[in-house]
């Protein structure tokens, strides 16, 4: 059985202030759902920096190698053609395609990594806790272990000025 408490704020500054209080009481906030990226929220939740940049770099490197390698292979191995006496292995003229391939691979690998790591995608089934979190609400989600624990959390959230505190049970 999965139990958690949700509560919301109407303003991101109240949210950040409330979050500080809640954390000071030693309560772990599982997630915060917001209508736009709130600055300082990732720090307040203790999130590490995203590693997506590494995926982009790796993707770009693979794209560049494929782009350059393929052109080099075509013009020196597969079917060397003489274009006006120019060299077969013409590095400068391979650069534009290599660059475009690097950008293409970097962008797409990162976008796919983004969708996969967030577990979102076309037709993804996700839980929408509150339809107003994409409008004007900043929703907190706190995981609950047992009944007693739930009461203390509710009290802390109430003290921190959160609204609409609700306990949700899911099987």
């Amino acid at each position: 059985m999965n139990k958690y408490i949700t509560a919301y704020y109407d303003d991101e500054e109240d949210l950040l202030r409330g979050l500080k209080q809640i954390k000071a009481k030693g309560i772990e906030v599982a997630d915060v759902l917001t209508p736009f990226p709130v600055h300082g929220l990732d720090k307040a939740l203790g999130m590490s920096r995203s590693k997506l940049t590494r995926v982009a770099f790796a993707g770009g490197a693979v794209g560049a190698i494929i782009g350059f390698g393929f052109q080099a292979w075509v013009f020196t191995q597969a079917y060397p053609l003489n274009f006006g006496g120019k060299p077969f292995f013409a590095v400068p003229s391979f650069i534009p395609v290599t660059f475009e391939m690097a950008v293409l691979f970097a962008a797409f690998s990162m976008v796919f990594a983004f969708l996969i790591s967030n577990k979102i995608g076309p037709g993804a089934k996700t839980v929408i806790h509150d339809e107003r979190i994409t409008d004007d609400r900043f929703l907190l989600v706190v995981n609950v272990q047992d009944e007693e624990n739930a009461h203390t959390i509710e009290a802390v959230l109430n003290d921190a000025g959160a609204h609409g505190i609700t306990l949700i049970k899911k099987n």
Partner: protein
Amino acid sequence: MYVSPLREPLIRGSKDYSQVTKDILAPMAGKPSKYWYMGITLSGAAALFGAWATFMTVYYGIGTWGLNKTVGWAWDITNFVWWVGIGHAGTFISAILLLFRQKWRTSINRSAEAMTLIAIACAGFFPLIHMGRLLLGFFILPYPNTRALWVNFNSPLLWDVFAITTYLLVSLVFWYIGLIPDLGTVRDKASNKIRKAIYGFLSFGWTGSAKHWSRHETVSLILAGLAAPLVLSVHTIVSFDFATSVIPGWHTTIFPPYFVSGAVFSGFAMVLTLLIVTRKALNLEEYITVGHIENMNKVIIITGSIVGIAYITEFFMAWYSGVEYEQYAFINRATGPYAWAYWIMMTCNVITPQLFWFKKIRTNLVATFIISIFVNIGMWFERFVIVVTSLHRDYLPSSWVMYKPTIVEIGLYVGTLGLFFTLFLLFIRVFPVIAIAEVKSVLKSSGDNKKDSHHE
């Protein structure tokens, strides 16, 4: 963050978050207005004209065009370069201005990026139709085939294939990643089940989780970092189509920067043309303010001046090079049979944008709209002048000819204009025209009510 009280607010009217949502989603709800129907009828008719011209070209071949053995490229490549250039403003606004942390872009980036995508689609049509046989367009891709031949990777025309395809795909994902949270908003505000299901599918199940937002910001930043050099590379490669040839007037090293700034110049003009009408028609004047228009006009002054200097530099270099063919090409441009086109270009691109030095003019919407149209025309003529005047009189006087477009070529151009406006009109009905989440994120620091809510 400290914001100077002298700074004009980016969003007018004291608004809260739900008001922002409501305002921006309003144009998508209900029945479209009478003007929308009028607009789409007109643009649809233009697109049909283009469909007829496409049919004529495919059925009878490009003999239906006004090309001849001297002028083998004319309106098609002119239109191609013009459309690609127009696309560049969207990427410039969403990528380069993001990297420079220009908050004013948040109100205009969504529609400018949509414009980019549509413009690239229109641009891509021209090289394909120039092949005469649209169905064999895939020949330009390097795929294993029974002829055992590969494409020529030394050719700028092939680099174009890679550049334009990459540009279209990367712009598409950049635009869509930005759209996902807003599509979530549309989903959650949808009143009927079908609409909810469609936008639920399109929003990829967006939840607004803090971790997702953090990743979303990283992705947007890196995509912007990728798109910024990409957009510069695309028009550089387009200019290589000309610059790597040996035709007088084309074979110059100034082309890449000159084409890139010309592209941004014409793109901003098209963004202005579209947005001045859109903001009025959709009641978004509080989001796309006169301040936004003024900022775009300043970009037009800069890029327009770069283009102007490039024109003069070209002339100087023609004289300084001592190459008589190069010199003749330029004298022929300014005084030959196509001098009228050259002087339209000079007037529209060099003189009209300089009017924006006057604050009265750059904050006047009617004046801005008219000048933006002038710039669009001027930039079309720039490409026409470069392409046709260089070709129609090159090295061999016995082959000198004139070029005139036929009705089929006009139809193709008008058709892409129709397609462009049709798709833009559909876009404003189907997607939020302003990035809702991004506007909300700057509302506190740059909204009208920033002064009373500020404490730091």
